[in-house]
Every structure is written in structure tokens, then in C-alpha cells.
């Protein structure tokens, strides 16, 4: 930490002949590294403590992760004898971790499906691609995803959702929870701010009930209660039931975030749009929502990241998302259950996705700020 007092004073400018005409802003000089680390007693203590912890931990981590680790092995016996990390397990099992119990000879299908989904996500990132075609593209992409995964048509063997697992399950749950949850969240947010009593009461009721329940209980309810409530003969797929629960849950949370943004828009904006003759829908779509969403990019990102990680909770209803596939892979008795390695690998995948979302939101924020300097 540095305080203003220990930064060197900047000379404002050399008072040359024409200094008055155009002065450069004083250069922002960074404090020298030694001063950052040892500038004050507090900083010195913090630096020493951190160094001690690193000195103790890093060599052991290197010993475990690199020096003593096993990289290649056909079965678990080598790992059992070694004291280091068993990376060979990941090499042997990564397909099972990524795709669960999906039939191994068919695993090109989830691989293709996931790759396609990632491509569409990448295409969706730049705001200039946000148009009607993108909505169309997403419908096609999700349909292709489901056909590829499920099969039963086009000469693909049928693989029921009970055999799906790993990354595709996590991705499709996250995509539907957020992709369908978001428009519903917007509708709930608008409903909650409506002057009409019926939509307002419905929205408030739904949001408050959903927010009052833990996600786990919502997942149980949709997976156990829904089949009981439905008429005889009509069944909904287990994965779809979990998807519905996640979608409702994220809609309620997104609704509250969006409502915060709506509240920040001055009344004059809607008045100006209405005075121009814009319909209510166009006023919301063209004037109010774009501004409201720009204002809530940080909390929106937060909810999105939380929801991506929340998909891991579907393990409580017996679905195999990425996390539970990893756990299932660990159950193989011929390997010595390398928990740390497996969870590190899964954590890395989650981190890449969530960190990507976080960086993307920063980009959106900067882009929004660029236009509106005051």
C-alpha cells in the first residue's frame, strides 16, 4: 500500500518560455517497488509474512506437482507408490470427466456439440452481432446440440439424457438458465414496476417466493413434485426439470438486478420517447432497457457467474454435470482416487469460463462508458 504522503512530489511543469500555451499533465510516476513492499512498518510486516508463507508452500507444491508426480501410467499402481500428484489419472480419465458416462465410442458427439456451442457463444460476444439473426442462430444451435446429444435421428444412435454428463450438461444448463431466464427476468422486473396491480402482484409474488427458497429445494421440488403434479402419462425429462428449476431461479435473481437498473433511469427518458410517439414496447426496448442494462453490468455479471457455478447443484437430483462426472471418475477402484488433481482440473475449467465472463463484462462496461463522457 502506498499513501499520497510517501509519493515524491511532482514538479507541475518546467516553466519554459511557452509553458503557458500547452502544459502536459504531470506524469503519474509509480512508486518504486522497494517502497511498495517496505515503505511502512505495516507493509514490511505483510511482505515478510507473505514471503514466509510462500517459502514454506511453494517448494512442497513443486515437489508434489512436478518432481514426485506421475505423468504416464496405464493403471493406478505407479500412482499408489508415488508420493506426488497423479496426473496420469487425468490423462486416463479426462474423457470421462468431460463427458460422463456418455458411450465412449459416441463421444465425438458431445465434443462436437460443446465446440459448436462455444463457437456460437464467441460469435455472440461483440455487441455489433446482436440482431435478429443471432436469436435465430441460437435456436438452431440449441436444436443441433440436442439432436447431436440425444440422437435417435439421422442415423445417430439414441443416447437418453440419463447417459449425458460432464461439460455438455453444465453448458446446456447454464445456457438455458441464463438464456431463457434473462428475458423472463426482464419481464418480471417490468411487471414489478408496472402500475397495473395484477402483473405487479404476480411478479412480486414469484420473485419473493423463488428468492425465499434455496436452489437445492427448488431442484428437489421440480424433480420430485413436478411428476406428481403432472397428469398420468405425461413425463418431463429429468434434465429438463432441472433446467426449468435453474431457469426460474435465475429469472428471479436477474429480475431484481434489472429492476435496479430500471429504477436508475430518469422519468424524462420515457416521457421523451412517448412524446415522440414511440409505443410502450419500443420505449422499453430502444430507450429504457439499453440504459438500464448498461447501468447494472457489474451485478448482472455477478449473477451470471453465480448461476454458471450453481449448475453444479444438479448433482443432488442425480444428474452428472462436470463436477459430479469428476466425482464419478474418482470411484474407479483401479486408481488411487486422486481427489486434488481431479478437482484442480475441474476448477480450472470453471475458472476459465467464469474469468472469461468477468473479462467480457469489463469490456462491455468500458464500451458503455466510452460513449457517455459527461
Amino acid at each position, binding site marked *: 500500500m502506498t499513501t499520497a504522503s510517501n509519493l515524491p512530489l511532482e514538479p507541475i511543469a518546467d516553466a519554459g518560455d511557452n509553458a503557458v500555451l500547452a502544459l502536459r499533465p504531470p506524469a503519474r510516476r509509480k512508486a518504486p517497488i522497494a517502497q511498495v513492499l517496505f515503505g511502512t512498518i505495516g507493509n514490511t510486516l505483510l511482505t515478510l509474512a507473505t514471503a514466509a508463507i510462500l517459502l514454506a508452500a511453494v517448494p512442497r507444491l513443486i515437489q508434489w506437482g512436478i518432481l514426485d508426480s506421475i505423468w504416464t501410467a496405464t493403471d493406478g499402481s505407479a500412482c499408489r507408490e508415488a508420493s506426488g500428484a497423479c496426473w496420469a489419472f487425468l490423462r486416463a480419465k479426462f474423457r470421462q470427466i468431460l463427458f460422463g458416462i456418455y458411450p465412449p465410442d459416441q463421444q465425438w458427439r458431445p465434443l462436437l456439440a460443446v465446440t459448436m456451442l462455444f463457437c456460437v457463444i464467441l460469435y455472440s460476444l461483440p455487441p455489433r452481432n446482436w440482431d435478429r439473426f443471432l436469436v435465430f442462430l441460437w435456436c438452431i444451435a440449441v436444436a443441433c446440440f440436442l439432436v447431436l446429444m440425444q440422437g435417435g435421428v439421422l442415423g445417430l444412435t439414441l443416447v437418453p439424457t440419463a447417459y449425458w454428463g460432464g461439460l455438455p450438461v453444465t453448458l446446456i444448463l447454464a445456457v438455458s438458465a441464463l438464456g431463457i431466464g434473462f428475458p423472463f427476468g426482464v419481464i418480471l422486473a417490468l411487471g414489478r414496476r408496472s402500475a397495473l396491480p395484477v402483473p405487479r402482484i404476480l411478479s412480486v409474488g414469484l420473485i419473493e417466493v423463488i428468492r425465499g427458497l434455496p436452489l437445492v429445494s427448488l431442484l428437489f421440488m421440480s424433480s420430485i413434485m413436478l411428476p406428481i403434479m403432472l397428469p398420468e402419462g405425461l413425463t418431463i425429462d429429468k434434465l429438463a426439470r432441472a433446467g426449468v428449476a435453474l431457469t426460474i431461479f435465475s429469472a428471479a435473481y436477474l429480475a431484481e438486478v434489472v429492476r435496479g437498473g430500471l429504477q436508475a433511469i*430518469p422519468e*424524462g*427518458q420515457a*416521457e*421523451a*420517447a*412517448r*412524446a*415522440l*410517439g*414511440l*409505443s410502450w414496447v*419500443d420505449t422499453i426496448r*430502444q*430507450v429504457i432497457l*439499453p*440504459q438500464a442494462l*448498461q447501468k447494472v453490468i457489474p451485478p448482472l455479471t455477478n449473477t451470471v457467474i453465480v448461476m454458471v457455478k450453481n449448475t453444479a447443484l444438479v448433482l443432488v437430483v442425480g444428474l452428472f454435470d462436470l463436477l459430479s462426472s469428476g466425482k464419478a471418475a474418482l470411484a474407479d477402484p483401479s486408481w488411487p482416487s486422486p481427489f486434488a488433481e481431479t478437482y484442480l482440473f475441474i476448477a480450472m475449467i470453471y475458472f476459465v469460463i467464469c474469468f472469461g465472463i468477468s473479462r467480457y463484462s469489463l469490456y462491455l462496461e468500458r464500451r*458503455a462508458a466510452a*460513449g*457517455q*463522457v*459527461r
Partner: protein
Amino acid sequence: MPFSVKLIDGSVGRSVDPKAEAAVQMIDVHKWYGEFHVLRDINLSIRRGERIVICGPSGSGKSTMIRCINRLEEHQKGRIIVDGTELTNDLKRIDEVRREVGMVFQHFNLFPHLTVLENCTLASIWVKKMRKKEAEEVAMHYLTRVKIPEQANKYPGQLSGGQQQRVAIARSLCMSPKIMLFDEPTSALDPEMVKEVLDTMVGLADEGMTMLCVTHEMGFARQVADRVIFMDYGQIVEMNTPDEFFRNPQHERTRLFLSQILH
């Protein structure tokens, strides 16, 4: 040109054809905010091409009155007829009226997330269903009229107050309105910017636009108004030609108000 301001037939310069159909008619209009009686028995008929300036103390209901004309506020009693269309709860008619009536606000109310050009094309595209290119031509025409075509690709936050208000005027004109409402268009501006906005409004008046303008710029009233209205406590206290209004106010309240405002 397809997008020039519609010149009203018979309105050449400052003379107005008295037989022309009324642009706005308010008959026995009342309005309440809860228990508070904001508008009391407003009767007003505005001919096409007529320029009206409305003044009065703060809270007297000036804004409320002109906001009733494009239904930003709802009246509860009486009739308001705009360009032959009566304002009722019929949403379709309200939209029709709003297309014919432009409004300029005290605080500009430009859309900060859109560029100046996009501000001006938004309604053309979404209300008139114009093609983007065509809408942009219309927008550039009016931005040139208000003398800021070079700012088209900036965002409102990058402009001065006077420039923003001129954009707001251009934005309204892009819908080719028959009637323009101004609610204290210069009172949020720094003094040196008032003139550029008033000049734009004078230009508009010279072209025969029907205008209702809430303002305390009495020089503007003298220069362009056909009639000046003085409001107090939700009533129209006095209505007269600018000459008579300033030279010979009839009511004590008008005199008091004028003495305060003209120092």
C-alpha cells in the same frame, strides 16, 4: 423536399387565417393530482400557425397544461381536441396525436446511450417505419437547420447545454410535427447559450409552426408570440396580444408577476 416543415396554408409571416381549423382546443378542462386541483376550467383555442407564450409563477400549472396536450398527463374533466382528434383513453388516438405534436423539455431528455444522429432517427425508424438511410437524411437535414450537423456522431453528453437543446428540437422536428410544445426550453441553460436556442425557435416560428411555449423570456414573447397567456393557481388569468399584455395588463396578479419578472 419530402421532409421540410409543413407550411400551414394561409399563414404567411405573422398573419393567421382566423377561419383555419383549431390546432388545439381545450374546453372546460380540469385536472387534479389527488385532492389538489391543478388545472381549473381551462378554455383555450389555438389556431394553426399561432404562437402562444405561456407564463406564470412556479407551480401555477403551466407544464401540466401543455403536457395534457400530448397526454403525458391525463385530464379528468372537459375535452381536449388536438388537430381534430379528441384525446380519450383510446391508445391508438393518443399515439396519433403524439406523432403530430413535438415536445421540447426543460432538461432536454436526450437519450444518452445513442448518438445525436441516432437520437434523431429513432422515432422515424420505429414509429414511421422509415428505412435507416432515409431517416438519417431527414435527421441531417434538421441537424443542419439547428446548425449542428458536425456533431451528428457525438453522444449527447459530449455537447454543451445549448447544443443539446438544439438536438432535442431537431429530434422533434424529424417527426414533422404540426404542433410544437416547449416547456421552459431555456431555463436550464447557461445565459450565453439561451440565445442560440431562442434563435432556433424564432426560425421555427417564422416558418409558420404552431407553437405553445412556456417561457419567461419576455423578449421572445414580444418578438414572436401572437398571444401571451398568464396562468396562476391552475387558471388562465389573462390572455392577450404581447403589446397589450405588457403595456396594459388587466389583472392585479399579472401586474405583480410582470413587475417581478421584468424588474
